[in-house]
């Protein structure tokens, strides 16, 4: 059953490539979007691992990730990235 690990590996690598967007920014929303891609990729990897490792309860882990995926995003939009309050340019990195 281990051959199912190959697609999981390729998705993991693609998600890690998206990591560069978290590092680069430039806006806070770009970083959050990359984190969301991490989340979706994570769900897909968990589903594949459930087949590869013959552990059906991994589907529950993926279910929780899928259900709670929106929460961090909602908190970000409502508590952090608001329009009227421009908290300096903490988003723009000075290298």
């Amino acid at each position, binding site marked *: 059953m281990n*051959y*199912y690990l190959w*697609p999981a590996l*390729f*998705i993991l690598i*693609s*998600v890690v*490539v*998206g990591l*560069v*967007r978290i590092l680069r920014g430039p*806006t806070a*929303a*770009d970083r*959050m*979007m*990359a984190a*969301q*891609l991490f989340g*979706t*990729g994570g*769900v*897909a990897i968990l*589903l*594949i691992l*459930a*087949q590869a490792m013959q552990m*059906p309860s991994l*589907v*529950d882990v*993926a*279910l929780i990730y*899928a*259900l709670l*995926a*929106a929460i961090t*995003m*909602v908190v970000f*939009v409502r508590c952090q*990235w*608001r*329009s009227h309050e421009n908290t300096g340019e903490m988003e723009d990195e000075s290298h």
Partner: protein
Amino acid sequence: MSLTDLFGSFLLLLAIPFFWGGSLGLLRFPDIYTRLHALTKADNLGLGLVVAGSILISKEWTVGVKLLLIWLAVLTASTISCYLIANAARKRKINPWKIP
């Protein structure tokens, strides 16, 4: 390996390009709005194909229902957070990219 397993594995393999598309789009596209577009490709089709493949491989209807729920939840979450982000970006007066 049965025929459904084989087809399921094929669907899993088919999902990989969509995740790569999402990642590369996130990296290569010029502004927030276009990157949102790339992101949702991985959410919708990438995960959808993984779910379809897993349903074929697992062969249990209870697991299948859970898998469908996962896909629906991710679709809802990604659609709505996509809207929230784009709306917040527009309110912050971030202009869409134009061909220079």
